[in-house]
């Protein structure tokens, strides 16, 4: 599971209002190279939750992203920043670990890169 997906996932348990972002407990993180496409990054940038991304990257062992969300000018011109964003968003894979709901503490295990988001009967 990559950070781009983690940035979209929220806890679905009934009654939970603050299910985003899920805390990452990283067990095994691997890096897989992905083709760099700045257009895609610019397109996705508006939809990202920056803080969640920075925290998630840090839990996976990557602390190169700036704390504050950069503005549009940086996005257009700064290629080094775009490369860092690309690396964090698309190239870091969480293979084993867990995602933890911030409100209830419920753990969603991650195996072989697949998070198990199935809810139990009483959580729906």
């Amino acid at each position: 599971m990559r950070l781009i997906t983690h940035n979209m996932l929220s806890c679905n348990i009934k009654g939970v209002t603050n299910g985003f972002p899920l805390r990452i407990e990283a067990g095994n993180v691997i890096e897989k190279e992905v083709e760099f496409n700045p257009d895609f990054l610019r397109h996705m940038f508006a939809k990202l939750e920056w803080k969640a991304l920075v925290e998630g990257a840090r839990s996976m062992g990557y602390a190169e992203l700036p704390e504050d969300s950069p503005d549009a000018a940086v996005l257009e011109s700064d290629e080094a920043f775009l490369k860092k964003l690309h690396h964090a968003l698309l190239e870091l894979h969480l293979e084993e670990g867990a995602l933890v709901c911030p409100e209830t503490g419920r753990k969603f295990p991650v195996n072989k890169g697949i998070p198990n988001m199935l809810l139990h009967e009483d959580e729906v």
Partner: protein
Amino acid sequence: MANRPELLAPPEIFYDETEARKYTSSSRIVEIQARLSERALELLALPEDDVPRFLLDIGCGSGLSGETISENGHHWIGLDISASMLNVAVEREVEGDLLLGDMGQGLGLRSGVIDGAISISAVQWLCNADKSCHEPRLRLKAFFGSLYRCLSRGARAVFQVYPENIAQRELILRQALQAGFGGGLVVDYPHSTKKRKEFLVLTCGSIQTSIQTSKNEHGESCSEDDFSEDEESGTVSMSDRNRARKRQKTKKNKKGREWILRKKEQSRRKGNDVPEDSKYTGRKRKSRF
């Protein structure tokens, strides 16, 4: 006709390891899934600006449809309830992120983040109550509601479905419309029982471009069936090309040349061998005939 898988077992049990492998190694299924996924992507009508989009593949299974998405240059998240199918997808090293989840429990994605969603042969599984706690209507509601939320404005969702009967199709449509979607049904090859495929095309917000027209035998475009919501009674009305033709048929009492030519054209469309139309077609014969 073989049994429908939905009637045999719930999807996470039906698609166990053996079945998952069988499904993915069948070249016929691989080819069909690829074709359906290409068509679904076409119907998504994503802007042709070479910018990769972020798509959702609902019921992605072993990643057959996901591969088509990757080939078209987009990134995607796949959701499926069968762990065995997802394991096959991992083995095939698909490029999208995979989630093990139940679409009937809601998608759990943030608002407005998905550029488009496709689903190949999966949504009809929602109509079955596989557990005693399941109520299909609630599951459909949870699914469509969460889908509507996570799609960005103007995004579309295209589902290729195999509804068991008209009641099932109506149920799916009604829930989709109640969730706020607009859209229509696109039927490819409507006259052929084998080739016939139905695509439910749902739109979020206003329809920017016209909905793609469906294909028939000769690849010509014919109009699709539209859904309009009936405000007063809250029902879904479907305009049907066939119904109009039936009305036309009962109007004429005598079977003149025009009727004959029309029937011959219909037969041609089905693919039958029909003699050419000539000045002799429908000509009045001598009384001996």
